[in-house]
């Protein structure tokens, strides 16, 4: 059911639902950007409309709402392991279409790749989604190419229009909330992007053989293996375990998992001292093929949602979409051999 909602009513909706949900939305952290006097747009818990960044696509994805960068799994003593208290509230996520598609990838990784992840699952079943419409394409995104520009699996959509908001409520309770407050009914279709400036084409016959192409060599030197591309990515899910000891004897402590990056040193280190993919170009190849080939072979659809965040965050101006668009010639190169 579609409604035209005033700012005041939407603020009331936020305040009301903040009681039972952590409401995660893009938020402008003023002055917290990489460089001085620049901002960082990241997901934060909000309770008011003014706290929501409605224009700029967030620099970091929503994934931290479901899988924090650092998450304590349990505390241990010699006798027992104790889980931290489960989240009290559910979560409402304000997502753009690319990120809503990314949520499906997170679900498939955390719930369906091997046994379901306990920590992800227990919050995930209490998640609701508000789709933020995209009236215009962002500069670096290629959602149309990845087929992630349109979403329908939302509980509510939200589009700012001339001082008001248009919402499409699929959630009956939320629809009732707006109806009860006299919001005018009208048909609403969330805004979506129909064309991006950036377009990518993944070759139909892309295969692991492309690993031998010369394409990857340039990244040996260009890439500085900082991992920003992974940390901003809404579909990167890797993590590393850390045991933190509170005492000398290592009997008391906590185990946590923190985000890991396949670009950063140490990702593949095994206990005996060996490691794989030492060159940055090999790491780039691993990442690109994970997003555009391996995952699809396993799950039947591409992992990358084309949000373009990795392009925007790379300090070395390495373009992921640019790389993908070279895969075709890279395949021809290895097939020619």
């Amino acid at each position, binding site marked *: 059911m579609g409604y035209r909602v005033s700012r005041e009513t939407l603020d009331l909706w936020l305040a009301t639902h903040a009681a039972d949900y952590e409401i995660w939305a893009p938020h402008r952290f003023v002055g917290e950007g990489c460089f001085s*006097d620049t901002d*960082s747009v990241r997901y934060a818990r909000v309770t008011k409309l003014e706290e929501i960044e409605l224009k700029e696509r967030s620099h970091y994805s929503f994934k931290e709402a479901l899988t924090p960068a*650092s998450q304590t799994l349990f505390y241990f003593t010699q006798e027992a392991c104790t889980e931290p208290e489960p989240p009290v509230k559910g979560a409402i996520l304000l997502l753009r279409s690319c990120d809503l598609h990314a949520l499906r990838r997170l679900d498939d990784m955390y719930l369906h790749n091997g046994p379901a992840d306990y920590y992800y699952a227990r919050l995930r079943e209490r998640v609701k989604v508000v789709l933020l419409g995209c009236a215009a394409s962002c500069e670096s995104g290629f959602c149309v190419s990845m087929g992630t520009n349109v979403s329908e699996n939302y509980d509510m959509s939200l589009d700012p229009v001339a001082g008001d908001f248009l919402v499409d409520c699929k959630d009956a309770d939320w629809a009732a909330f707006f109806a009860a407050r006299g919001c005018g009914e009208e048909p609403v279709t969330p805004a979506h992007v129909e064309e991006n400036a950036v377009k990518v084409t993944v070759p139909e016959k892309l295969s692991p053989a492309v690993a031998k192409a010369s394409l990857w060599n340039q990244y040996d030197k260009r890439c500085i293996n*900082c*991992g920003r591309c992974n940390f901003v990515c809404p579909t990167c899910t890797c993590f*590393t375990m*850390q045991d933190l000891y509170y005492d000398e004897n290592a009997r008391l402590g906590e185990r946590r998992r923190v985000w890991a*990056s396949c670009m950063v040193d140490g990702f593949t280190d095994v206990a005996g001292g060996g490691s794989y993919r030492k060159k940055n170009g090999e790491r780039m190849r691993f990442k690109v093929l994970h997003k555009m080939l391996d995952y699809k072979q396993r799950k039947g659809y591409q992992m990358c949602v084309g949000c373009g965040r990795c392009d925007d965050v790379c300090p070395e101006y390495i373009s992921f979409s640019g790389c993908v668009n070279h895969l075709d010639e890279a395949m021809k190169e290895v097939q020619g051999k």
Partner: protein
Amino acid sequence: MDMNTAKLKKNAFRVTKVRGKTASRVRVPGGHLEAKYLPVLQEIAEKYGNGTLHITNRQGFEIPGIDFADVDKVNAALQSIIEGLEINQEEEDAGYPASGTRNVIACIGNRVCPFGCYDTTGLAKRIEKAIFPNDLHFKVACTGCPNDCAKVRMHDFGIMGMTEPQFDPNRCVSCEACIKACRTRSVGALSMQNFRPVRDAKKCIGCGVCVINCPDRAWTRSKKKYYRLTLLGRTGKKNPRMGEDFIKWVDEESILKIILNTYDYVKEYIDPNAPGGKEHIGYIVDRTGVEEFLRWALKDVDLPPEAEVYTPLYWKGVKY
């Protein structure tokens, strides 16, 4: 030919080698100006000068080859620049006032440079507002970060941008990028303890390299901007020397006050026989002792609690 050279110099013109020819000295506080002023300079140089411009060491332009007779016309022509750069001017169309206190210079700062910790030109202009015009020989420079591209340690007051890194452990992914960057690009003030960087606050110089290199915004900049204030560096014939650290983690307000206080101190103690009424502050401090200088400089200065004042102050340098 009759010319009051003292008056000429106070109007920011130089007495040159060529008899009857002067050079107009156009200060650009903070070294950054709108491009629209360049045609004005071009016109002055071509109409009144010899068609050339010198880019000065202190971020100004010097237009040589001007006839004494054209000084007033040049001043009038400079008016749009003087207004545009918000120079403190005593009389309209009378050109740049004073030439004792030197142009406040600035590196390109955070308007452009990723390392800059603040808007250096902005601060330079605020200092300009506070101290100009003035006959006393003061040199002030602003640099965005401890790389000190503006070479502020060669100035009486060197202002180096700092940020106090803020750490959010919940965003840290233990990648050690900050540790490596601090070790290789800065002073090695970070160490890894229990999977997280720990900052040695004493060692930290506030350069912000950790913030720049953090891939997940675990390190961010302090809301408050801080500075390192260095003191009494100078070039010159007798005893050139580097400015020494005076206060670390000092704020802008305190810096402005310290500079203004120093004007009072210099007025009190300057050698009455100093040539041209100009004496490097350092020589005055050598004479009065540092304690007396500090008594004046820190008068009514309310330093922020995090400020660290270096003591004792001692300058080296070459003595001839």
